[in-house]
């Protein structure tokens, strides 16, 4: 085989070929890292929205609901959209990581663990910062997909009702306006578990666990204040 060294160096000189700059040779790798970081941030946001939706079912609510009702509500009102998008983000993150310069060296398990840990850690921070609850109301889309919490508290047949107290009728009843615009008469008693922060006054946003007693009549077994700035509260104002 002939020695190519002369032929190749001559070609380089004749065609004025020069080594590409560092930026040009590395831009693809940088682009994949930027894309990977964006995917992690998006994944973290999706995870924080899942936390927001799931943490709405606090232990006090779980206690007040019958176990069967709880599981039913849990599965019917799970944030499936965010769960699917989180899975898509983790998968895309894996694919993009593999495209980075040395991404091929790492096993599926290692990459998936790194992505999951980053997404979960940042997602928890986003949840603490409350960015997720502020963002949730601004995301366009049907409530049952984007904001499953909203629908969760509009199920009087399943024992959950949420809305704004619009009139205190007596020491043991008030009128509640739901997000749908229906007015419900809510009864409570000394046995009703009323959470500390709840003030029985007009304008208070509350979540109620109990039982439908008749047409637009609801018996409360537990009343809590709706999380401040939560989607239901803001949804009522819209």
């Amino acid at each position, binding site marked *: 085989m002939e020695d190519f*060294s002369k032929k*190749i160096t001559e070609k*380089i000189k004749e065609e004025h070929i*020069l*080594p590409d700059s*560092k930026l040009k040779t590395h831009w693809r790798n940088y682009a994949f890292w930027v894309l990977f970081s964006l995917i992690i941030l998006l994944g973290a946001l999706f995870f924080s929205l899942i936390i927001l939706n799931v943490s709405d079912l606090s232990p006090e609510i779980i206690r007040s609901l019958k176990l069967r009702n709880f599981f039913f509500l849990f599965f019917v009102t799970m944030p499936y959209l965010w769960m699917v998008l989180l899975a898509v983000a983790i998968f895309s993150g894996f694919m993009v990581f593999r495209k980075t310069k040395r991404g091929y060296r790492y096993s599926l398990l290692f990459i998936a663990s790194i992505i999951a840990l980053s997404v979960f850690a940042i997602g928890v921070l986003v949840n603490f910062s409350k960015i997720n609850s502020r963002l949730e109301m601004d995301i366009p889309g049907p409530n049952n997909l984007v904001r499953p919490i909203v629908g969760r508290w509009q199920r009087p047949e399943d024992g959950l009702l949420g809305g704004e107290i619009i009139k205190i009728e007596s020491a043991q009843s008030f009128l509640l306006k739901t997000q749908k615009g229906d007015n419900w008469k809510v009864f409570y008693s000394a046995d009703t578990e009323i959470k500390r922060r709840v003030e029985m006054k007009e304008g208070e946003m509350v979540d109620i666990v109990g039982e439908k007693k008749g047409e637009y009549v609801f018996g409360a077994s537990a009343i809590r204040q709706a999380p401040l700035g939560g989607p239901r509260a803001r949804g009522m104002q819209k």
Partner: protein
Amino acid sequence: MEKSIEGKLTDNQLVELSKTDSDVFGELVSRYQNRLFHYIKRISYFGNEDIEDIIQEIFIKVYKNLNGFDCDLAFSTWIYQISRNTTIDAIRKKQVRPQSVQLEEDDSLKIFRSNVDIKNELEIKEHVDEILAIMNELPYKYKEIMVLRFLEEKTYEEIMDIVEKPKGTVAALIARGRKMILEKLEAKHFLINPK
């Protein structure tokens, strides 16, 4: 720079010097062209002229990407990686299935001996055609890894960087390739011991 001095420099030193002096790059070409020629011949079905064209394309690519080389990899691994990708692109352009790549007799027997301990060496001589058929029936992805491991004598880490797959996948491909060879030999009633 004088040729004798260039010959004493390491690959990485030559890479650095080549960035400003294209004549130095000639030394890297001389060092690798034969090795790459054999490697490409083993992983492709191309004739000598085509391989020489591919080699020129590889060296021009390497020269253009000198700034993209980092010491994270050995230069030899990096150039094999580029060679493999360029060869696979060339195979795709010709639209021929890589499955049709045939190893030469000596290469096939070398891979075979690296994986199988035949009790009677005479058996190999008597059944060369069958052994060659078994080796050439191996799917491309196994054959390619076997070539790197047993003919190019690369380590698992080097193969991982050349084919851009995790080390576990490389090990699994070698193990599965070996298992396939043994199963086919057993089916043909060879007296064998796996290595």
